[in-house]
């Protein structure tokens, strides 16, 4: 999609005057602990406070752990989506992929414990292939990623249903369900620490470390300006493709947790891509690439889940929920862009218009 490099492609850049009034010092921008993270942490805290007023027992261990278990897959998906978004692309295929993986697992395992590991390996392989296809089609064939992943979303949706005749068949094994359903038992106070939560934490930590590694910095620079990255010796196609692969593998992991959590149903995974993107954006990560942190994306995912929980606690009619959700994302992003986190025009405007610019960059630009 439009992955406009600028926050609001069409809007004029903020008048600097406006910023001057709001921001005391230029230096403040860089010294602030990454504005996006602070904002989303604040929103999350706020939601938790409201939840606590509604249901004080929410923080009594088991409910909180239950929340963590439910939120873990979205956190993992958000980290994957973050990697793709920060590289300047989109991955709309993760919802379909989660669905496909659960269905594949159920059909191939078919209740047979011995099949658990082979099938997990196969799922990882399948995730890898989907990520590679997304990445290579986007980078080498120069199809905008919103179209590529929209295409794979359709293909996966149709192919898996065609393969299973329209509705999932088979069953998951007990072992398969352990990470998504069980945890470390008999922990004082908490009663159970879900594996899913631990896995999500591990993924976030790995994500943070990854973004501090050479690859992470390269990915970030690629999302910021892929031409400059390419001119600096970055293999843009492989860096971006790896991000897609990571996203697909994390979606596979999320599928294992979601399948583990609730078993197979026909609807599994539907719409998760938009939820994941919403989570990442709530974390202040800029669509178009080059800005934002893993931690913020993960907090964004927790915020989305907390919001769902809050709606529930407030006994908000479920039909109204989407409306509230919509208003909140708009408000959050508007607030972020007000604060200037998303400011400055993105499209590089330079005088020399070199054709070579096009030969190196990858998909768009």
């Amino acid at each position: 999609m439009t992955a406009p490099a600028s926050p609001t492609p069409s809007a004029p850049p903020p008048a600097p005057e406006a910023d001057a009034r709001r921001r005391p010092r230029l230096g403040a921008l860089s010294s602030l602990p990454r504005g996006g993270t602070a904002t989303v942490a604040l929103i999350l805290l706020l939601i938790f406070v409201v939840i606590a007023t509604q249901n004080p027992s929410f923080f009594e261990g088991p409910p909180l752990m239950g929340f963590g278990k439910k939120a873990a897959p979205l956190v993992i998906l958000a980290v994957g989506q973050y990697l793709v978004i920060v590289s300047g692309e989109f991955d709309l295929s993760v919802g379909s992929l989660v669905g496909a993986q659960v269905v594949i697992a159920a059909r191939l395992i078919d209740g047979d414990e011995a099949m658990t590991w082979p099938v997990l390996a196969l799922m990882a392989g399948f995730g890898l292939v989907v990520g590679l296809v997304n990445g290579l089609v986007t980078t080498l064939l120069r199809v905008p990623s919103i179209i590529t992943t929209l295409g794979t979303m359709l293909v996966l949706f149709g192919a898996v249903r065609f393969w299973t005749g329209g509705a999932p068949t088979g069953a998951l094994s007990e072992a398969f369900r352990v990470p998504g359903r069980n945890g470390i038992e008999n922990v004082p106070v908490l009663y159970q620490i879900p594996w899913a939560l631990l896995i999500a934490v591990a993924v976030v930590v790995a994500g943070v470390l990854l973004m501090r590694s050479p690859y992470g910095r390269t990915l970030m620079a690629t999302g910021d300006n892929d031409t400059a990255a390419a001119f600096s010796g970055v293999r843009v196609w492989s860096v971006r493709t790896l991000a897609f692969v990571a996203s697909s593998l994390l979606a596979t992991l999320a599928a294992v947790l979601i399948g583990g959590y609730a078993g197979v149903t026909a609807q599994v995974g539907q719409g998760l891509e938009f939820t994941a993107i919403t989570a990442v954006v709530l974390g202040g990560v800029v669509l178009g690439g080059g800005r934002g942190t893993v931690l913020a994306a993960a907090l964004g995912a927790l915020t989305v889940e907390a919001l769902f929980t809050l709606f529930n606690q407030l006994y908000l009619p479920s039909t109204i929920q989407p409306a509230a959700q919509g208003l909140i994302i708009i408000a959050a992003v508007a607030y972020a862009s007000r604060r200037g986190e998303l400011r400055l025009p993105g499209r590089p405007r330079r005088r020399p218009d070199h054709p070579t610019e096009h030969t190196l960059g990858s998909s768009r630009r």
Partner: protein
Amino acid sequence: MTPLRTTVRSLGSRLGTTGLVYAALVVLLAVSSAFLAARGATLFTTANTVDLFTRSSLLGFLAIGQTLVILCRSLDLSVGHVAALSALVAATTMDGDPSRIVLGAAAALGVAALIGLANGLIVTGLRVNPFIATLGTALVVQGYLDTTFQGPAGSVPAAFQTFGYTRIGPLPVSTLVMLGLAVAAVVFLHRTRMGYHMYAVGGDAEVARLSGVRAGVPVVTAHVLCSITAGVAGLLLAARFGTGNPQVYANGYELEAIAAVVLGGTYLLGGRGGVAGTIAGVFVLATLDTVFNVLAVDPFVKDVLRGAVLIAAVAVYARGQHSRTAARVRFPSTGPPAPPPSPPSAPKTAPLGGRR
């Protein structure tokens, strides 16, 4: 360069992007009818033709508006929801009363326009990324629809249903209206200031602003017009359903419309493309669907094929676009080595641009 590639390229340069999309459409039609003929079916039966046109009118309405928005470097993910809402507004306002047709249609388009206005203002005023902004309004509309309507509601008088069912020969009235709207949009884009400014803002909002274009205005206008065309799509749905159905938002129309726009050669990052190409993109998608239908392709396989064709088509298209932007060839790699240039007769300091 192979002769084929040379031909394609020279064809491309002569036809332009839009021409290429139409050429692709013609090829697709030819290949499909040959393919169907080989399987003992016919593509151009009345039934299939009507089917093809009918499919294209709904998608056409949605894609025309989407083109304007994308040209402005924005995006509208709410068109499916707007169509659902305006169908309901129309059906409940008309409530079976022929004298309220105009009122109902006006109300539907008015509500649609308001949502477009909201989208536009959120994108320009609040500076929310259009993906998020329109996803947000879509959710808001969805919440409203699901809370207010428990299923289909309202009823459309028979007179209004003619919009959905009447046809002139094989050509449904709705398709004629859609094509008329397309022509209007083409004129709008190419002959009005607002149209010019849409290209300008999509090309580079800052340049437009410095040239005196109030950058927000074309974007808001595009969003309003886009929502209105989605509203027209909603009217068509109401005419065809005889009522309004909130659940149509779940049909993924928005993504299909974006696909049509991109297939039609409009650049997702704005500033380049147009409605004529979009219409070809719409017909390409409609043709594929019709062919799949004639072949009774399994609905799930249909999704697979749609996805694959979309990617493939855009990939081919991206290639073409890529080669067009490549630099002028000074030294062709094949063929006889270029002769050393003879000493130029005139000094080159003279007129700028003289070398091009």
